[in-house]
């Protein structure tokens, strides 16, 4: 049975249809965190976040407090919020920007105060038309309410936030690519080093990039203290997290769960959560953290929903999105579709990623749709190896950003777990599922 003890932190207003309005926000402790923060020293605010051990929610899971403390040695110039959410099967930021936009603004303002930054940008996925409107409205409301702009709540601290719409490119979720897009360029990721945003970010200035969900946790952390947040979860994975569950389950959806206290089995099978496999079928495999992550099989159902717990099993919790495959799911087809995604979304600057993703996709297409050969299996693995040498986890790479080494994850997982099905596809000259 799942442990559903913790009260929601970032999705607390979910039950209210008007959760996106300033009225509802103010009625539900809106801006209390910010007001409290403004009464503290910036260093104290940062210290609370550090104490909370808040891991970044964008995918890489780097502790926000650590990121900030590294930066506070040098003055930070810009704060950039990553709301490009495009990792397939991830839909938590979508909820947060549409339904809790004020909470995001409050979180951003708290972070800006802690970092003493006066200009923040919220980069939102362009396809979130409603989200863009709601966040803009929340900014307008906050300005009117004195929660943004000059001399916020009479504290002497000032901040401007600009909403920047993306325009349809998955790669812009990668922080340096996002910065390029924010500078008005093609979203080509920059090479790290030297372009670590913390040192050399937006306009070459020190820049903090944090995810929407990361920011949305801040009001609660300041209201209740970092220690209260750290008391939730276990080990390095503290607090709660928004998990996005989709695929072949009866009740797909977004669930805010305390970290580590639950397992994949809980979220997939608990009647209050995923409520089991569609049609009472059997689970075949699942992706634990977005399509860049290597797949898990039924053996890993009892792995807890925690960052290190998943990493120890050679995959990642990533963006916290879980995709469930049942027995009727063709793994070749699933891996092909994911590869097609990467091929469409490769920015194209690195040869291995640009050419490799397309080549891999075409081989996978042939296996699935006819024309596959047994030899293709080894060819797939060798090409994958040329993008991510050794096919290790965490991956090595021959590319600039980690989109490249994400491409092999699904192909390598599928071949490792279901090699016989690949062979069957090749001998059958196409898919073996109906």
């Amino acid at each position, binding site marked *: 049975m799942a442990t559903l003890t913790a009260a929601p932190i970032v999705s607390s207003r979910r039950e209210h249809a008007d959760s996106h309005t300033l009225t509802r926000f103010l009625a539900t402790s809106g801006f209390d965190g910010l007001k409290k923060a403004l009464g503290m020293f910036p260093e104290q605010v940062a210290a609370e976040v550090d104490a909370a051990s808040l891991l970044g929610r964008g995918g890489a899971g780097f502790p926000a407090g650590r990121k900030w403390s590294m930066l506070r040695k040098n003055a930070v110039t810009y704060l950039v919020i990553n709301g490009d959410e495009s990792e397939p099967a991830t839909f938590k930021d979508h909820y947060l920007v549409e339904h809790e936009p004020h909470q995001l603004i409050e979180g951003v303002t708290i972070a800006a105060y802690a970092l003493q930054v006066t200009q923040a940008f919220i980069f939102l996925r362009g396809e979130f038309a409603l989200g863009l409107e709601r966040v803009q409205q929340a900014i307008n409301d906050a300005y009117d309410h004195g929660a943004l702009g000059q001399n916020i709540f009479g504290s002497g601290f000032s901040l401007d936030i600009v909403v920047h719409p993306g325009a349809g490119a998955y790669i812009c979720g990668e922080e340096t690519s996002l910065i390029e897009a924010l500078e008005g360029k093609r979203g080509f990721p920059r090479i790290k080093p030297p372009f670590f945003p913390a040192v050399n970010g937006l306009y070459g200035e020190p820049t903090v990039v944090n995810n929407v969900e990361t920011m949305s946790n801040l009001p609660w952390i300041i209201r209740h203290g970092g220690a209260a947040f750290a008391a939730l979860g276990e080990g390095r994975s503290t607090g709660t997290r928004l998990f996005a569950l989709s695929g072949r389950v009866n009740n797909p959806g977004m669930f805010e769960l305390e970290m580590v206290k639950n397992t994949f089995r809980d979220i997939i099978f608990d009647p209050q959560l995923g409520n089991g496999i569609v049609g009472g079928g059997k689970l075949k495999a699942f992706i634990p953290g977005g399509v860049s992550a290597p797949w898990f099989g039924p053996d890993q159902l009892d792995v807890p929903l925690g960052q290190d717990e998943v990493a120890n099993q050679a995959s990642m919790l990533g963006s916290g999105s879980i995709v469930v495959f049942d027995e009727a799911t063709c793994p070749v087809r699933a891996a092909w579709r994911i590869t097609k995604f990467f091929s469409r979304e490769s920015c194209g600057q690195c*040869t291995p990623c640009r050419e490799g993703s397309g080549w891999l996709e075409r081989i996978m297409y042939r296996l699935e749709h006819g024309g596959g050969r047994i030899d293709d299996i080894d060819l797939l693995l060798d090409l994958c190896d040329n*993008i991510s*040498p050794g096919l290790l986890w965490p991956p090595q790479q021959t590319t600039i950003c980690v989109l490249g080494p994400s491409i092999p994850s699904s192909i390598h997982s599928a071949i490792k777990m279901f090699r016989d099905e690949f062979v069957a596809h090749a001998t059958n000259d196409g898919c073996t599922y109906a």
Partner: protein
Amino acid sequence: MPESRESVTIKLNGREVEAFKGEMLIAAAERAGEYIPRFCYHPRMESVGVCRMCLVEVDGPRGATLQPSCYISVQPDMVVTTDSDKVKKAQDGVLEFILANHPLDCPVCDKGGECPLQDQTLAHGSGETRFIEEKRHFAKPISIGELVLLDRERCIQCSRCTRFAADVAGDAQITFSGRGDSIEVAPFPTEPFDSVFSGNTVQICPVGALTAKPYRFTARPWDLEQVESTCTSCAMGCRVAVQSSGDRITRLLGVDSDAVNHGWMCDKGRFTFEAAQSDEGTGDVLDPRTRLTTPLIRRNGTLTPANWGEALSAAATILRESGAAKSGVVGGARLTNESLFAWQRFARDVIGTDSIDASFGDAGDAATWSLVPRASINDAAEACTVVVIGADIAAVAPVLHLRLRQSVTAGRTNVVALTTGASSQSSIARVRLAVRPGETHLVAAAVTGDHSALAQLELHPQGTAFSRDELAEAQRLIGSNGEGVVVVVGRANYAESADVTDAAIRSLAAALPGARFLPTWRRANLGGAFDLGFGPGLAPGRRVATTRGRRVDEQVAAMASGEQSALLLLGSLLDNVVNRPQAINALERASVIVVAGNGGDDLAYADVVLPVAIDHERTGTVTNFEGRVTAVAAKVTAPSGTWSDIAVASELAEEFGQNLGLTDATDTARVIEELLGYPTASVLRDGHGDGVITGVTGDQSARLALDPVAFPGVRSADAVGLLARAGAVAVDAVTSATWSPSTWSDLPQPPAPQNPAADAYSLRVVVAPYLYDGGVAVSATSAFNPLVAASVATVNPYDANRLGINEGDIVRFPGEGGVVRLPVSIDDATTKGTVVVPFHAEGVDGDDVLATWGVGASLVTEVRMESR
């Protein structure tokens, strides 16, 4: 580019090697003998690290990881492996990925035989492809500009061309379009790729994706022969590899000279060789595009072929009959030093005239230039502040613009521009002071704090054309003594007397003792002409006499008045003057001997025509605008029937019973060096390389080895010895002490320019030089024809609004000689109160425009603009 010259030790494949801290690993490894394969890296551009071909293992906190060696800068004690199995697999993998979609075009591809991709594949490729999918398809080559074709199937997305356009040329006319594997290079649909630097993108394309229309299918690399030479399209003197096949020039490629052009060229320099070998019209000797291969004599009003004996004697007769006082020599700025020396000997010692002029008032007078402290191109590129006076550098010395632009974008240099119209400097200048014609010398004085000059400028009805803040910023950047300042001077306005530019130079030189000066002459070997005394009142060796003969403009006037009756023309007069009708009148009245390689409009007025060898057919030296003497090399044989200038001058002297004592270029070079200590013979003996700056020793650094992937094509040089001979020229004889320049006080002071009272309704005329003007070189190069500037009058929006004129309107300009009608273009970079027309443009009324206005008759020219 190395950040510093601090040496550090790194461990490369287990051995310790020296490297410069901060330089790119790929370059350090190359010097240490480990050549790392590459495609996107180019030593003259910022690294991007995208092709991933240069991956090597670098030890780091998380063990050895694969890193792009073109992007990793050398740090002390770095541990690098370039030869492990892991590196080899990664590199082979990248090569296989690049080839996956690459067409099997090699047999029909221009690049075949000099293609880095082909070479890498032969060296490292597996031999059989594992790619059985359908390759990417695009329409085969599409034209993206007048000179460049693009084959998108061949493109390997290294971004060299787009980075060149955006970062080096500073004008992103082509960019990457699309994403992922549909990335392609593209111009904007309605704006073709017509940058004056477009040929560089072709040269640096590591595959055959970009090809130059003039070169396509003309030769295969293995048939090409090559020499290193100097481009003589302008006075920058870019180092080039001249390649030929079957005794025809096929193309020019930029050679990477650290001191001069960094491997770049402009398109004019790259493609004008076509003009010399135009096949068109060989039957008609009067076709201006025709290469002259037979002497001609005018008989019964018609130029008819003659033999050399007849022609020489006819020419001698003309000169003898006119006598020393009534003869003059004009042109020659495109000749070699040796030819110029021979002609000046002929003029002074045989004819006995000092009326010899190659300059057409190009940028200040020779006397001034022999006295001001000169700067090299590298000095300008390293200066804290560069003051640009007049010229649009990209139009007169395009590659100098690239060099300055690079310094500016690297944050080394600030540019202060004193210009009249829109110019390339606008994009790189920290501050621009708008200047009206006739004011340059006053503005130059004002930036050095001369209050009376400022007061004089303020007398204009509209006050100064720049703001007080702009002036203050310029003054701050220039400083008070000129230390770290290089003044780049060019003549930007042929409707303004050259004396104005001259006065500006003198005023800056006097006020800023620490400043050095770099001229940007348009004419290629004006430097040699000045140094070798080819000018009125100049003696060989940068020495100035106290009396002088007639300048070009004075000769034109003298011919019109009958004071001069013979003209020996070395090249073209009509292509170089502003007031053509006036020049035509002069030519009509005098007896004219034309010595040229290809004819221009002047032939119509010639009495004797003597055909000579031209570029790429002759050996010798030229001197660029920094005073650098370099070799030009013969690559093809001159057509039979043509002679060298030195032979023509010597034989003409024989007609007078005199002996010039010069036989050929080598011999003349030796005489020059013996006589003047001018390093012609030394440079010619070594033949290749960056030559030597006269008056400077110890500046001759050896050329870096040429990277065949950075400069594909030039590599075929290996076979003909370009690399083997490129390097330092050792010259001991030349020191500054060899020179004995006159002093300022010896010079006749130029007349202080008087500004006519400005009429608030009239506009001052700017006749601006333009790269693709209507001169012989451009009009005989078919590829350039579509690019020649159209006649258009550009004005500031202020003046257009004032007179109710819109873009494209045809307006009337009444002048002394009638009315000129021109379409108007409106540009706020044009100084208020001026109207800019391109020099030698095509279109409305041609050059008569300038004559109608009386351009060139006085210090400045004013016209009224009327809307109907």
